[in-house]
């Protein structure tokens, strides 16, 4: 079965600084990978998704992520963080033969300081 590890429960950055949120997945084949963001008291919103193809995918609000098969990773990046990015970020993996149900990581809480 597939799994996702987000090793950082909490990341703190200053506004304007660059950001990387880490995600490692476990799956033998080629997965579909997603990053979702959850703002306080809201549902999940899709930031970006990876389907087999270009390893670097662009998302909304300046986010991008890079798929690495050799490292089994799908790290999320942003060049300059804004205070409105303060939220919890979830990495998820799904597979075509598994009803496409995503398996989520435990999430990384992003705190942005002025």
């Amino acid at each position, binding site marked *: 079965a597939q799994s996702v590890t987000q090793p950082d429960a909490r990341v703190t950055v200053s506004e304007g600084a660059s950001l990387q949120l880490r995600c490692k997945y476990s799956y033998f084949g080629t997965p579909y990978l997603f990053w979702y963001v959850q703002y306080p008291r809201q*549902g999940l919103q899709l930031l970006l998704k990876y389907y087999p193809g270009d390893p670097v995918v662009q998302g909304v609000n300046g986010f991008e992520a890079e798929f690495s098969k050799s490292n089994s990773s799908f790290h999320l990046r942003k060049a300059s963080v804004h205070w409105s990015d303060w939220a919890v970020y979830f990495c998820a993996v799904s597979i075509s033969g598994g*009803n496409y149900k995503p398996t989520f990581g*435990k999430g990384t809480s992003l705190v942005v300081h002025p």
Partner: protein
Amino acid sequence: GPKVLQIPSHQIIDMGQMVTLNCDPVSNHLYFYWYKQILGQQMEFLVNFYNGKVMEKSKLFKDQFSVERPDGSYFTLKIQPTALEDSAVYFCASRGQGANTGQLYFGEGSKLTVL
């Protein structure tokens, strides 16, 4: 973008009572999911549903849980009877077919508090 609506947004009930959580999925979507999120923790898969049938369920989907989508209306999650450990936020999701296969659209969640 496509929206999944969930009703109610918050429900407080006494242990042992029945609760029904309603989900209005994205129009023309055919695959439906329920996830459970306990405060501050990760989203856990409960069940997915297609063509009137449960396709897959997790060990969290206890015997007291049931899902249905009568006559193409709301996709519902019913818990009867409820237990204290059912307190959580329940997220509904739906997906379609075609170019975006694999992408789930989530609602804003129904927070259930069991007293």
